[in-house]
């Protein structure tokens, strides 16, 4: 049975997060958990910098276990991410929710955020800071997949690897894309806990 367009609009307005966003969000949460935990395990086998991640925060027990998790989790992360991007583009989700970001709004909203006056009264509308954060993490997601592919296949995909300055360059890019996503995640979780209605909205849709 078809619903009228008016009904659809009312239903959409009522809904903070459509079902596909909620489903892909939570699958993504699991996938990111697997990819970061196993990625830290792999990092620890040959640290790029003068530190290692605490083994208790890593996944897989040792390098082979971490690699098995990482190269299994990648399918979940990429398939789910693609589904989200395709559905989001089809429904103009990104254009409606994340654009435009105006410099003036951004300055005002950052000021408000820093003084704790940024309103989250209407969860359907993102402020400029949120828009920038969500767009930023989406781009970090694209970069982490592209640099990950370059690391996995530096010969078969050598042109892609060359974009990152070769294998070693892709390692650095992959690391910093991870760092950006984890930084986003920390702020994201803190904000969700500060505004519990937003967590409920991501589960029930409203």
């Amino acid at each position, binding site marked *: 049975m078809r619903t009228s367009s008016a009904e659809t609009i009312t239903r959409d307005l009522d809904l903070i997060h459509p079902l596909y966003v909620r489903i892909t969000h939570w699958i993504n949460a699991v996938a990111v958990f697997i990819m970061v935990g196993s990625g830290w395990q792999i990092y620890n086998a040959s640290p790029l910098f003068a530190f290692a991640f605490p083994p208790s925060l890593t996944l897989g027990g*040792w390098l082979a276990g971490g690699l098995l998790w990482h190269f299994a989790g990648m399918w979940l992360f990429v398939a789910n991410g693609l589904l989200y991007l395709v559905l989001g583009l089809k429904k103009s989700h990104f254009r409606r929710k994340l654009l435009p970001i105006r410099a003036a709004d951004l300055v005002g909203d950052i000021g408000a955020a820093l003084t704790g006056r940024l309103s989250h009264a209407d969860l359907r509308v993102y402020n400029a800071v949120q828009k920038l954060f969500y767009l930023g993490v989406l781009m970090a997601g694209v970069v982490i997949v592209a640099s990950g592919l370059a690391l996995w296949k530096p010969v078969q995909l*050598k042109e892609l690897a060359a974009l990152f300055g070769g294998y070693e360059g892709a390692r650095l890019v992959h690391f910093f894309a991870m760092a950006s996503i984890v930084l986003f995640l920390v702020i994201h979780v803190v904000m969700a806990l500060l505004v519990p209605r937003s967590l409920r909205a991501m589960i029930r849709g409203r």
Partner: protein
Amino acid sequence: MRQARKRRQGVDAELLIHDAARLLPDPSRRRFLRQVGSLGALAMLTGCNITDAPSAEKTLRKISEFNDWVQARLFNPNRLATTYPDSAVTRPFPFNAYYPEAEAPDVDEERYRLILDGLITNKQPWTLQQLADLPQETQITRLVCVEGWSAIGKWTGVPLRSFLERVGADLTAKYVHFVCAEGYFSSIDMPTALHPQTQMTLAFDGETLPTRLGFPMRIRIPTKLGFKNPKHVIGMTVLNNYTGGYWEDQGYNWFSGL
């Protein structure tokens, strides 16, 4: 599987090193997934009992086999790994193995024979001199370790493809299996064995291959991770049965193509 094993055992006792390798002490083998028990958060999210390590490991290994299949299809037999100028060579080249450098096997050049087995017409063993008399090629390519680091080396040796053709190997067989003096072993797919840059390496950076890098011969494969580049190779078998490898049997992905 059984047939291949019988054939191998029947021909030469030295290839039994393959089986001896399985008996080596291996403390890391069962470390797999030990920390998975602390992942209560994930268990809550999925509702699955992921603390059940054996079943999780089984699932992950199935996915790893699927990844072998995907990688075999991604592998382009004509696609060459990037080559570098002489100035890019990493000197000294890093040592890496499951044993310390001092324990790298000392292979006696006089007594060394490369043993051939399996689907090969001429199974005559090869001395090091005979291998050195074959046409040699030099490549400067990057070795990427499964641990993440990489280093550029200058490798000289016999293209494996030309050697397999010379000894009358069945080039339609699925696998080439390598056995090493210290008990290490690994196997690769035939398309990779026939790749133009896959090499039986006898020299590094213009000098005889040093013990630490695999004297007298290592298999150099710039299209695969470092652990698929076995050192101190003493045996080579062409066969249609999957034989895994020292690390592969413990969980490293078998294909491990780059």
